[in-house]
């Protein structure tokens, strides 16, 4: 049996200057699952995503990543496998194309592979007309799509998305939802995303929901659902 993507064991996170942020006794996120993190503002969703991306280290407790304990700051395996798209997304100086290719450049992906990775994502998220524009000149929704595309071209095993649908209109939400759903089914991509609005959770049918309240797990369960709605 394959190992889960994440196993959290008595994980607690406190801010360096004090202040409780998150405490989770146990949480398992299955491989190839779609997990929705719900909860009100300040409930710890973003903190949990940062911990899952190994961009913050838990104050106490352990996080197993695909069965093994990763270094607190992450290691090569984690960096290769998990990518976080924060909200609001950060775009570096330069064009949208530069931003889109930045991860490929950093990871030294051979240029011969770039087109095959970029083309489907550009088409799926309708980024073609934006590529030569300055990244900083994009609207919030365009920046969101670009940042998600930048993560997807790296072909991670785990995609961590903070409020991925927050700035997207209905049409773009559906496009993104369909793309992510396809990647989850075909490539077994594990997706963990946060959303505090009910309708955005509906845009990507989750297999598992994790609800946080004041930094604690208030519920966690599986949802059985049929195939995605038409257009997804």
């Amino acid at each position, binding site marked *: 049996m394959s190992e889960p993507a994440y196993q959290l064991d008595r994980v607690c996170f406190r801010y360096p200057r004090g202040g409780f942020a998150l405490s989770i006794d146990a949480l398992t996120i299955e491989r190839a699952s779609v997990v929705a993190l719900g909860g009100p503002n300040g409930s710890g969703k973003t903190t949990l995503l*940062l911990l899952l*991306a190994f*961009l913050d280290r838990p104050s106490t407790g352990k996080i197993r990543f695909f069965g093994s304990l990763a270094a607190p700051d*992450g290691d090569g395996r984690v*960096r*290769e496998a*998990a*990518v*976080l*798209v*924060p909200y*609001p*997304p*950060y775009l*570096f*100086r330069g064009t949208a194309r530069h931003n889109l290719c*930045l*991860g490929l450049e*950093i*990871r030294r992906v051979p240029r011969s592979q770039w087109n095959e990775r970029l083309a489907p994502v550009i088409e799926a998220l309708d980024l073609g007309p934006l590529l030569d524009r*300055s990244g*900083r*000149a994009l609207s919030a929704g365009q920046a969101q799509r670009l*940042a998600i595309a*930048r*993560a997807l071209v*790296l072909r991670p095993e785990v995609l961590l998305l903070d409020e991925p649908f927050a700035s997207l209109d209905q049409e773009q939400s559906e496009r993104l939802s369909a793309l992510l759903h396809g990647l989850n089914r075909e490539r077994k991509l594990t997706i963990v995303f946060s959303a505090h609005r009910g309708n955005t959770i509906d845009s990507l049918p989750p297999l598992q929901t994790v609800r946080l309240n004041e930094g604690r797990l208030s519920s966690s369960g599986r949802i059985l659902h049929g195939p995605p709605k038409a257009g997804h």
Partner: protein
Amino acid sequence: MLSELCEIIWVSIKVSGLSVLIAGALALPAAVALLVYRFPGRRALIVFNQTLMAAPTVVIGLLLYMLLSRSGPLGSLGLLYTPAAIVIGQAVLVLPIITGFSYSALQQVDNRARLTAISLGASKMQAGWLVIQEARLALAMAVLAAFARAISEIGIAMMLGGNIRHATRTMTTAIALESNKGDFVSSIILGCVLLVITLGINVAVFYFTGCQESDE
């Protein structure tokens, strides 16, 4: 007369440019280290650096004079009253300035830049470089401000350079000398040149800023 003026201007630009180059090479990694690493005494170091940013040039000149004079610990190097001594002194003067402004510039960069870079697979070093690139405008301004400070100071140039004709005479020491002699014409010309250089630096900053803003 004109050739001597040109020589003085050249000495000023050369020593100040070199001192900023040396200080910049040390200050930028120091600023990155202050930002990235958490170590005991880090805050005290930041406060100390901020204090040094306001250090009077004559105090720096005096301390280095004691080090470099014949009876001082570094007297055997024979650096006193050479352009190299001014370079060292001005580098010491602007090192905390570039460090402080660079630290502040890097601190202004959104933390998501570093997190995003690391999440995309960047090493700490690569993430640091990306953050530096995000702050490049403010960093360039830190360097230009340091150059303006170095080229317009007089205490170090006078105490460590000695205002020696055809060797260590800079614009500021020449202005002081010519004023003492009552030759206000030469003083005013040199003063105007100094102002033009400072103006040039400001124009460069504005042009650079404009380019960056239109890029965004």
